[in-house]
């Protein structure tokens, strides 16, 4: 308990850093963030029989079936313990990922509707976003059925629909509340929260995965 108090009360003479805001008055989510605790789901999805079977099959063949082992993207729900970076502009927020495929997601805030014409099924889907007060709400559809929901092989279908609610409750933390819905694979949505810690002295490093190991990355 003493430790908790020490951690939450600033040292004498120091003001706690307030939540930063952009010139437009929105909460500024910019920063480098690392997940606090496990990167796996805190609970199991309420899988329908076929999805349950697929999960069992993936668990029995973790290395062989893992898309990440073949340098393929993690998708949206599955994250790594490596840092992520948010770059925020009024109409576009970019989530950069150090690990897995060293790639990015784009959250469109310009009011556009979902558009799956170009990429009807992709690893990271189509993400549109809006502000609900100080919460950034990101709505993503248009997934393929190939990514996993975490490292333990949890599958999903192309009906996956992910809603992420991003909050910065204090300077040093990012809280993301997830609603993961998949009517073809789950009997009810999976709802959970992840907390990320600010990594103020860390930026993303280069991280790449080699195609069949043909080209030396080192």
């Amino acid at each position, binding site marked *: 308990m003493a430790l908790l108090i020490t951690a939450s009360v600033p040292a004498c003479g120091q003001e706690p850093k307030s939540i930063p805001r952009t*010139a437009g008055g929105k909460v500024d989510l910019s920063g480098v963030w690392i997940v606090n605790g496990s990167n796996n789901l805190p609970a199991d999805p309420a899988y329908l029989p076929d999805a349950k079977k697929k999960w069992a099959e993936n668990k029995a063949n973790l290395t062989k079936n893992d898309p990440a082992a*073949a*340098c*393929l*993207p993690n998708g949206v729900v599955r994250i790594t313990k490596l840092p992520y970076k948010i*770059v*925020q*502009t009024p109409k*576009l927020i*970019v989530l*950069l990922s150090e690990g897995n*495929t*060293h*790639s*990015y997601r*784009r959250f469109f805030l310009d009011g556009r509707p979902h*558009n799956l014409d*170009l*990429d009807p*099924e*992709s*690893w*990271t889907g189509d993400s549109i976003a809006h502000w609900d007060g100080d919460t950034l709400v990101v709505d993503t559809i248009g997934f393929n059925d190939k990514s996993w929901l975490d490292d333990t092989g949890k599958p999903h279908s192309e009906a996956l629909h992910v809603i992420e609610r991003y909050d910065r409750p204090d300077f040093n933390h990012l809280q993301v509340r997830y609603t993961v819905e998949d009517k073809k694979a789950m009997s009810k949505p999976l709802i959970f929260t992840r907390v990320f810690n600010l990594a103020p002295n860390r*930026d*993303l490093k*280069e991280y*790449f*995965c*080699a*195609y*069949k190991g*043909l*080209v*030396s*990355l*080192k």
Partner: protein
Amino acid sequence: MCKISQSQWLAAAILVCLCQTTGAQAQGRPGSTSRFPGAERPTSAPPPGPAGPLPRTPDGKPDLSGIWNGQRPLPHQPEPDLLPWAAKIAKQRVENYSADDPEARCVPGGVPRSTPYHTEFVQTPKLVLMLFEGNIHSFRQIFLDRTEHFKVKDLWYGDSIGHWDGDTLVVDTVGFNDRFWFGMSGEPHTTQLHVIERYHRRDYGNMDIQITIDDPGALAKPWVFNRVSTLETQIEMTEYVCNENNLDPSHLVGDSKFGDSK
């Protein structure tokens, strides 16, 4: 998504070449081997992008944000003054139809390699992002909040710092590995590589790009050339995943050391 690999793009370029100019010969450097289409130097400038005024950010800088088409080479640009060892390797690579190109194996294309795919610029006062559609769906960060390079080495995209010179964004990058190629014409480089890119958004739809490649390990003098890019206003970027069903190497016709070409 269903992706078009660089070699499929190349195949399309070859088709266009065969249909349109049956008598055309590849224009090699004097004393050098003929170039295959794709490693060819252009004979005319690409068509311009959409007209309109240059957008600016609230702080008055040119706003480079937007989706830009793949950087296109311009005609009559200087050739690199390669040191003998580097010239020998470039010649071998061209003669081998760039079959060993690492980029076809889904590793980053490095700097300043251009691709046929889009790049989205995302600009903030302290950071500019380049989000790549392909060759791999990755990104570069250009830091405008520091003037010194980090002590890094062996990177595909290096460490990039930027500053504004009037209306031109100047990007200075070091800390490279020596594994990527500058393009299908196969010029090699060393870890002494130092790249300076000057991005000038001339108007709404056109970006002039001047590139200086300095590498005392491979070049007798810095190689300076110009490219252009045009704003893409019609379509969004797609999720290009090189490692998904990558057919590129199997379309390469040279003798690949990786054993995966035709």
